[in-house]
């Protein structure tokens, strides 16, 4: 599942986004001026910046190698395939050096017996692809990008960021000297690695409970009789 970037950019732009901080007295979520194709709406840029703050590396790069390797056998002897994807860094904002390569590890690939593993949130990566990347350490978990699929903004293909859109995104992501001191570890496709495939036991902690809407009249302008009739009709809007 993606982060809420697209939701926000779908509904708020420009002044609308600024006023939305005022709560329900804010203007409604309705379309504003269109953002040019290939660029990000202001709120999408804000959310990108928030993701960027969690990134150890931010760079523009092109995929120059894809290797596969199995994880080490777990306690039950199971292994799964990973892809090690190497980007040539064309333009580095932080965490990596321009002109060098950086490798990230991604769950997915082919088992020795020919079966194939794919993971819903891991982007499909191919040689030659160019992208703006928000990266974690290259050997982090099942996906080396921040928010996984959301940490990759394509620079080629029909729905890619334009040159202006890329400049806009890089400007939003420029996080200052402290952030630039962080380095992102590159994964090593030759090094053995472990990956925990199993969870033992069920959920034990009580999860957080979402705030409810009791404080708000569920439907402030409702006609109680109509709502009652609708519910009595199984929410079928055709009332008899």
């Amino acid at each position: 599942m993606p982060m809420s970037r697209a939701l926000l950019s779908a509904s708020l732009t420009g002044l609308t986004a600024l006023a939305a901080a005022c709560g329900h007295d804010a203007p409604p979520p309705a379309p504003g001026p269109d953002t040019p194709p290939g660029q990000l709406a202001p709120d999408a840029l804000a959310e990108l910046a928030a993701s960027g703050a969690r990134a150890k590396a931010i760079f523009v790069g092109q995929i120059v190698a894809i290797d596969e390797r199995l994880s080490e056998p777990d306690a039950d002897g199971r292994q799964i395939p990973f892809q090690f994807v190497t980007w040539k860094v064309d333009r580095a904002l932080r965490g990596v050096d321009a002109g060098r390569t950086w490798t990230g590890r991604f769950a997915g690939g082919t088992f020795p017996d020919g079966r194939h593993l794919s993971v819903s949130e891991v982007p499909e990566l191919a040689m030659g692809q160019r992208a703006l990347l928000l990266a974690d350490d290259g050997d982090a978990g099942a996906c080396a990008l921040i928010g996984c699929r959301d940490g990759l903004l394509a620079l080629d293909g029909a729905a890619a960021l334009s040159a202006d859109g890329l400049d806009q995104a890089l400007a939003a992501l420029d996080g200052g000297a402290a952030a630039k001191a962080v380095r992102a570890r590159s994964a090593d496709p030759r090094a053995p690695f472990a990956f925990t495939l199993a969870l033992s036991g069920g959920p034990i902690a009580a999860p957080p409970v979402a705030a409810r809407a009791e404080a708000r009249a569920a439907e402030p302008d409702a006609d109680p009789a109509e709502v009652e009739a609708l519910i009595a009709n199984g929410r079928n809007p055709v009332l008899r």
Partner: protein
Amino acid sequence: MRTKLVAASLLASSALFAAPAFAFEMRSSTWATNTVTIQVNSGVPGALPTHYAKLLDAEAKIDNNASALRFDLVVDNDAVSAVSNGENELNFTSDPALLCGSIGCTWIIEGGGQILEADSYFDINYAWTLDDNKWNSIAYDPTKKRPLINTAMHELLHTMGAKHENDCINIMGNAWNVVSTNGDHTEVVVSEDTTSGLIAVNGQRAGTVTDVSVMHWQLDPVATGASAYSAHRRSRLLDAAGALLPLAFGYPEPTYEASPGQVIQVEMTLENRGTASQTPSLGTYWSTNETITTGDTLLSATSPVLNVNVPYETTRTVTIPVTAVPGQVYWVGAIVDRTSALTESNKVNNAAYIAAIEVQ
């Protein structure tokens, strides 16, 4: 191993409701049987009973789909959930690796043209919305969270072979706002485009499935951008020339300014998720509240042709009643199958308010 299957381009015969061709994204492989068993971790029903109830709701809604493929959610007979153990499993966890850095993630193993195993994980630390009240959903209040049922359906549809979608409104895109909303109740279903994909790969269900619906959400191509997920925006109200009506301030939802007697265009998204084309009655209504029923004032009526293929994003032209009182807020809404001529698997999604109007 993945193939993009292009949906058959079945255009509506009515010019008013002609739909462009879109493509669903499905795996070319599918399950060996038409009923897939998915084992929910044995700790979930006891520790997370409301979450579990929502998973069962998701199962029921997916099993209403018009393809031959179903799944059966059962409680696991052991306490272990694992990728590549030969069992299809579902669990809640805080392990970011199994969650793929997200709040929901599905791992799929394919081989020999078949899906062999699927495992879905959901974030136990995420404050999921666990009811159908729109004001508890991020779709209507940005301070709230995503409804578990929408995300669960998205992930479970991954297990059925559906991939992410970005070229039409779709539960396989940003799932949280793919709902039909009437009053404060949201109703989520398997999207028409996904239904078409499931049928293309798995064949049609024996017998007849009928389900038409209306939503006040539509594809937002700009916000979708380069994302793999379709982003959605609210359907809009336009003036007679097609320009966006002025927006009124101070309301929690889209509220437009218009005058008594003014001609406006009302956008809406219609879907047909059944096994056959339909020509349902469609009414556009004027209401004093956001609950739309046939008890409200009918502004226009028509009967579009809805093929089973892709969502129909369309507009209806109506005239605001001259009796509308300036200063008051009204709602424009729609009911599909307003004459109740169809026997459907779901009637709840037949109505939606589109937007409010503050009469000038």
